[in-house]
């Protein structure tokens, strides 16, 4: 957990990229996240966090195919790096650990 520096929103985007696999490009990530979060996101916020994570080494990317709907412009498909997956795992473990600690704490607090 030392040098990861992964924000909450970034983590969500990263997880979405991991989940979407071959479909992980800008619009699709936005659509998926909007559906799950149930509120609107701007292209700017998604793109800036993608670029930031790419700089930090959580993501790699390459150009995909172009469609007519995109005015002949290529997609950029994102993929998670092994470093990212490790960090995600770590985060998950830390969270799980914390979650398992909660009921106990709450119970003890209640007694006092």
């Amino acid at each position, binding site marked *: 957990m030392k040098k990861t520096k992964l924000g909450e929103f970034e983590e969500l985007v990263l997880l979405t990229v991991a989940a979407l696999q071959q479909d992980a490009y800008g*619009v699709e990530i936005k659509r998926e996240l909007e559906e799950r979060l149930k509120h609107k996101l701007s292209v*700017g*916020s998604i793109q800036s966090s993608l670029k*930031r994570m790419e700089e930090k080494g959580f993501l790699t990317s390459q150009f995909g195919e172009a469609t007519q709907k*995109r005015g002949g412009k290529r997609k950029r498909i994102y993929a998670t790096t092994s470093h990212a997956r490790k960090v995600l795992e770590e985060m998950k473990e830390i969270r799980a650990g914390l979650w398992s600690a909660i009921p106990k704490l709450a119970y003890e607090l209640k007694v006092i």
Partner: protein
Amino acid sequence: MNNPLSIRPPQWPVKFLRFFLKEKYLEEIEGDMEEIFYENVERFSVRKAKRLYAWEMIKLLRPNLIKNLEFVNYLIQSGMFKNYFKVSFRGLMKNPVNSFINVFGLAVAIGLCVFGYAFARWTFSTDQFHKNKHSVYLTTFFANRDGVAQQYGTTPRPLGEMLREDFAQIKNVCRVEDRSVVMKHDDNVFHERVRYVDPEFLEMFTFPLKWGTTNALKDVNSIILSEPISVKYFGDENPIGSSIQMIYGKDQSKVFKIVGVAAEFPKARTISFDFLVNFENFRTTDRAYDFHDWNAFVNATFIQVDNPSDLLVIKEKMDKYKVLQNSAVKEDWAISSFSFEPLATLHEQSEYIKNDISRSSKSNYVSIYFMVVIAVFMLALACTNYINIAIATAAKRLKEIGVRKTIGATRKVVITQFLTENIVLTSFALLIGVALGYFFFIPGFESLWHFNMDFRFTDVNLWIYLPVILLVTSIASGIYPALYISRFRVTTILKGSVKFGQRNLLTKVFLCFQLIFACIFITMSVMFTQNTNYMSKRSWGYNRAGTLYAMVPDQSSFEKLSAIMVQSPNVLSISGSAHHVGKTHKSTVLHFPDHDYEVDQLSVDANYFGTMGLELKEGRTFNDFEGSDRHAVVINETLAGNIKGNPIGLVFRIDTVQYEVIGVLKDFHSYTFRQLVRPIIFKVADKPDYRFLSLKARGDSDMEVYKALQAGWSELFPEIPFEGGLQEDVWGFYYREIGIYKLVWKVFAFLAVSLATLGLYGLVRLNVEGRTKEFSIRKVLGAGIKNISANVINQYLVLFIVALCIGAPLGHWLGTWLIEFSNEYHMPITPSGAMISTVITAVVLLATVSTQIWKVMKSNPVSGLKVE
């Protein structure tokens, strides 16, 4: 939505994005955006999709997505700017007097700039609302007058119709003719001007209708009103379908049906109308109107040609009309060529076209130049105030700059800081200045001249103009202090070995300029005041006081009215005339054996000279019996001077009839002092031509006679409103006008003087404050008021003398030029104006300095020595 891909996203956000976004991200993000756009098109309306698209683009402006432009980085140092703002606000609060001087000066100057802008916009927009302004042309012709080609705006009567028939390229032709009539609806009866036009008028000129339809004018029984006229006769009701009676002669009238009311006319226009009726109405209302008479002219003929190249073709073929015209008229009025003036620039050309329908805006253009000059002067005054005070106070900020430089500020950063401070200050001034302009200068000027400049904040150009003013002003006033102050080295500043600010040569030069400006303005204002006072006393060359006139429609009404007025004991004399001094005249060409003259002709009766108080210089006036002096004329001094030699007994021709000069009148002003006296001849008027009745009242009884005249008129002609008045009211506006000029110059002089005085006050105050210790020591050692005053004034005395020596003569010269430029007749110019202004300026300057001397005298030397 037939095919979503035929809809394209808007282009400007893409261009915007391409400029800002890092290039390596461009393809991907543009593609994403387009994909989302097409999705949105399917889900929402196209408009909403476009709006969302643009909004998303703007939201893409994030630091890690946009290019590394240098200035972006620079702007990101917002923390530093926050500090600059804070420091400038503190500075403003700490020195309220200096801040007031700076902000007030700049605000006044900017207020004048806003006012100048409003006026210029109003002038430039004259007639520009016409959609066809580039395809509608006024037909004009050139004719030789006294050896000079003169352009005329009238047109031979048959030309319009012939143009319409002969040229397929001409889309529309519209003849315009005006007549004075009486309009009657129920109890509302007024004298009015009616415009006879071809039905195409409203097609060629963009005057939208509030009610009714434009093509309804085709019917000869239709009439269209302007909005104010509609309100005048019908109040707020919709008058469409109502009828109005036009009385155009004795017992002659026609009832028109109202088919339209024009919407309010744009404020800046030269051509408009009160009533519009079909041109064909001349066939009924004026039986004598010969449509085929080349000898008569219509007020204006407009043509509409959509293709400008067709105009050249038309122009070439105009020669045959010239031949037609010149064979019909007498050789005096032969024309040399026809030409066309586009509507868009007609108001600018109008000055040089005689008798044209438009109104010249030349004087407005001249005013714009003056206003630009004055606004720039005022801005310069305010900026120099700022510069002087900034330099003088720089000493107090040296430590701050030293510290800033020590912790790493470069010279560029310090300059940026000073300019930022300036922008803050100027923004304040801009706000106040715009308010001053909007609430004070513009309404003030509008109420003086009774017009509306239609100034609005929604004007797009204004929002370009204001930031430009802001930028120019803040840089002009801020760049020198910024460069000057940022120049010093850290070590010298912190050692405290820099001494500057109080003896800066440039400060002196600036102050000197300010004082010169102030002196110029005062001199000019004094001279204008003197001239106005002189003008209001200047004789017009005839009796204005106690003289009255009334307009009459024909001989019989003249006789009836004069029969009533003769009974009044207060009436000294009555006379009848076809023309009247200051109201009307006729242009005539006189043929001498060797030369032709164009003169103004007035036809009058024998009593006219006595009634009007026109003075005879030599010879005699007309004899007062029927049929006398049929071939005699009386001329004025100007014409006599032109002719040379003894004018009495001289013989010349008008057309083919011989006339003899029997008398010479002293010169008098038919028009204002702005215009040269023109050569004038008086002829005996035929009784049926009488249109004016003039009266001379006894002593102070003119108001009684005026009432009697009105009463007599309404008794005789209850149907027709009275038209006439006191001779003093003809050109009464002239006096109001020169009064306004006097006031405007006084305001300018006051502003210039206050700015210069404020600047001087600020400098003297800083100077005296900086020398508190010195003065305290002087006082302790026994210096009296004489010594202290001499000490303070000493360094300004040379400056004052130089400023007065340059300013007063310069102001005198400029004032003389301006007075001569705008008046043909003016006061004899003496140096007294310059002398008076020198005294005023000197008193103001000394008063300003003495406030500070007073402060020094009152101060306690003990507390002065304790400072720091």
